[in-house]
C-alpha cells in the first residue's frame, strides 16, 4: 500500500484518498464530454445526408459517412447570390490574416522593445493608453474607423481590413512583448550597445531571437482573433471581399429550399480548422509563453 510513484510530491494514500481521486477523474471526464458533444454533433452531422439528418437522431453516428456536404460547402454552396462555396472567401481570409498577423506582431514587438529597453519620458503613459485599446469594445470604433478608411480610400477593400486589424491588434501584441521584454536583463542591451549595435540591430539580432515564445504566443493570439473576427469583416468589406466568417454567416442564412444542416456544419468546421491547426502546431509554445518569466529558467 505504499505510494507507487517514486518521484514527485509525497501524497497521502489509503482507500478514502483513492476514492476521492477516482471521483476527481470522473468529474473531469464528465466536463470533457460536455465540452466535446457539440463538436461531435457537428462532425457527425457534416458526414450525413440531408435525408438521414431529417429522420435520424442527433446523436447517432452516420449510416454511410459521406464527404458530399464538405465538398459542397467548399466548392458549390451558395453564399448570397454567388454559388462558388466558401473557397474564394477562405482565400480572402488568408490574404487578410497573414499580413495583418505579421504586421501587428512585428510592430507590437518593436513597441514592447522600445517601451522597456529604450525608456523615455512618458513611456508608461503611452503603454497605459495602448493597453486601453485592449479594453475598448470594437463597436465603439466602427463609425470613426469607417470614416478614416473612406478618407484613405481603403473602404470596402481587403487592405482596409488589414489596416484595421493591424491597428487594433497592437494593443495585445504590445502587451505581450512588453511583458516579455521587461523580464530581459537590461545589461544584455547594454552589452550590445558597447558592442556597437544600434536600436534595430539589437532588436533583430539579439531581442527577436530571444523572444521566440512571445512571438509564438502573439501569432497564435492574433491569428485566432483576426481569423475569427466577424464585426470588422462585416462592417468594412462588401460582397466579394468578405472574409470567411462573414461568408459563413451568409451561407448559413441563405434561406432558399431545404435547410442543409450538413453543409452548414461542414462549412463551420472548415472555417474553424485553420485556428485549430495553428494551435496544434504551436500550442506548446503558447502555454510556455504565457508562463514565461514566471519561473527563472
Amino acid at each position, binding site marked *: 500500500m505504499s505510494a507507487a510513484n517514486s518521484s514527485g510530491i509525497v501524497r497521502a494514500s489509503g482507500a478514502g484518498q483513492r476514492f476521492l481521486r477516482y471521483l476527481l477523474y470522473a468529474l473531469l471526464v464528465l466536463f470533457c464530454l460536455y465540452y466535446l458533444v457539440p463538436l461531435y454533433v457537428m462532425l457527425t452531422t457534416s458526414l450525413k445526408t440531408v435525408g438521414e439528418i431529417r429522420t435520424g437522431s442527433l446523436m447517432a453516428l452516420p449510416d454511410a459517412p459521406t464527404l458530399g456536404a464538405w465538398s459542397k460547402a467548399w466548392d458549390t454552396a451558395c453564399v448570397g447570390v454567388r454559388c462558388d462555396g466558401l473557397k474564394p472567401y477562405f482565400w480572402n481570409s488568408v490574404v487578410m490574416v497573414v499580413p495583418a498577423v505579421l504586421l501587428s506582431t512585428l510592430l507590437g514587438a518593436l513597441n514592447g522593445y522600445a517601451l522597456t529597453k529604450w525608456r523615455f519620458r512618458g513611456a508608461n503613459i503611452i503603454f497605459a493608453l495602448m493597453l486601453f485599446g485592449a479594453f475598448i469594445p470594437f463597436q465603439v470604433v466602427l463609425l470613426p474607423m469607417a470614416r478614416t478608411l473612406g478618407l484613405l480610400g481603403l473602404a470596402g477593400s481587403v487592405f482596409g481590413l488589414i489596416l484595421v486589424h493591424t491597428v487594433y491588434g497592437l494593443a495585445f501584441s504590445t502587451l505581450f512583448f512588453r511583458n516579455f521584454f521587461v523580464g530581459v536583463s537590461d545589461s544584455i542591451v*547594454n*552589452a550590445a*550597445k*558597447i*558592442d556597437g*549595435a544600434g536600436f534595430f540591430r539589437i532588436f533583430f539580432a*539579439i531581442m527577436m*531571437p*530571444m523572444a521566440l515564445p512571445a512571438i509564438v504566443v502573439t501569432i497564435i493570439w492574433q491569428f485566432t482573433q483576426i481569423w475569427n473576427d466577424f464585426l470588422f469583416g462585416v462592417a468594412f468589406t462588401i460582397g466579394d471581399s468578405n472574409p470567411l466568417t462573414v461568408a459563413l454567416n451568409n451561407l448559413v442564412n441563405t434561406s432558399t429550399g431545404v435547410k442543409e444542416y450538413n453543409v452548414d456544419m461542414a462549412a463551420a468546421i472548415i472555417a474553424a480548422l485553420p485556428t485549430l491547426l495553428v494551435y496544434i502546431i504551436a500550442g506548446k509554445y503558447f502555454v510556455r509563453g504565457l508562463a514565461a518569466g514566471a519561473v527563472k529558467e
Partner: protein
Amino acid sequence: MASISLNNVFKRFGSTEVLKGIDLEIEDGEFIVLVGPSGCGKSTLLNLISGLETISEGEVLIGDKRVNNVPPKDRDIALVFQSYALYPTKNVRDNITFGMQTRKVPESEQQAALSEVSEMLHIDHLLERKPGQLSGGQRQRVAMGRALVRKPEVFLFDEPLSNLDAKLRIEMRTEIKKLHQRLGKTIVYVTHDQIEAMTLASRIAVMDNGHIRQFADPTTVYEDPVDLFVASFMGSPPMNMLPGKILRDGGLFIEPAGDTSGLRFPVPGEIASRFTANEGHEVVLGLRPETIFAAGAELAGPDRFVFERPIDVIEPTGPDTMLVFTIGETEMIARVRPQDEAPVGTSFRFEVEMAKAKLFDRATGVRL
C-alpha cells in the same frame, strides 16, 4: 594612452543625487577598484565612465579626450557585467564576435582574434555552445572574452565575480590579476567585496554615499584609513571600534565608555605627540582583530598592553581562531592562534599592539 580623469562629477536621478562631486585621476595601466556598500554609487560611477549613463555635471576624460557626449561604442572601452549579459540565443563564438560583426571587421581578423582570446581563456572547446549550456565560471570567461577581443584601452568590470561560488571566485580573481599584468591596460573594477579590492587593486577608491572617502593603495587604505567609515569597511573581521574618552594622567589614555573595571588603554607616544584634544574628548579607539592576541603569543615589543576579559564566543576559522569578548557594551574580536584558545567563560589575557591602534573623533568620524 588611457588615463581616466573625473572632474567634479555629479549624477542625479530625478531629485536623488547619487554622485556628489567625484574627482578621480586614474593613470594609464592602473588597476583601480571602486569599493563601497551597496547604494554608494560605485556602479553608477562605472556607468558614467562606460557611457551607459549620462553625466549630470562635471566631466569625464579618457586619455585626454572629453567623452561626456561620446556614446559607449566610441569610447574604446569594454565592460564585463555582473550578470555576464551574454546573448542567450547566440553560441560562444557569436557572443565573442558579435561586436566585430557589428563593426564589420574582416572575417579573417575576427577568426584570429577569436582564437587568440579563446585560447587565452581556455574556452576554445566551448565555441559552439550556447550560454545556457555553460557553467558559471565558463560564462564568466566568455564574458571576459567578449571584452578582450575589442582590445580596448580601458577595461571596466562591474562586480564580475559576485555570482560565482567561493572557490571559483578566488580562481578567477587570480586570473583577472594575471590578465592585467599581461595586458597592462587600465582597469576600473567595481566590487563590494573588500578582500577583492585589497588583492586586486593598485589603488582603491573607497566610496560611501556618493563621495570618495579615500583613494590610495591597498596598504595605505588598510593601515592608514582617513576616517571611521573606511576603517570599518576594510578588513574582515572588521576593525573593533571601542568608544571612549581621553584621559591625561601622566600620559595619554583612552578610557572605554561603559567599562567599570578601570581599564585604560595607553596611547603610544608617537600617536599622542600629534594629538591635541582635551581631556574628556570623545573618541573611538580602532583596533584590528589581528592586533589583539593572546598575551605572550608574540615576541615582546614596544607599546604592548595586556588586559583580562572573559571569552564570550569562540569562532575557529582554521588558521586562526576568533575570540569574542566585551568591553563596556562593545563586542570585540581578537584573532589568536588556535593553540591559544581557551574555553568559553574563562578569563583570558589579551595583549594589544597599541602602536597599530587608530584614533577617531567620535563626533566627526575623522581620524585623529
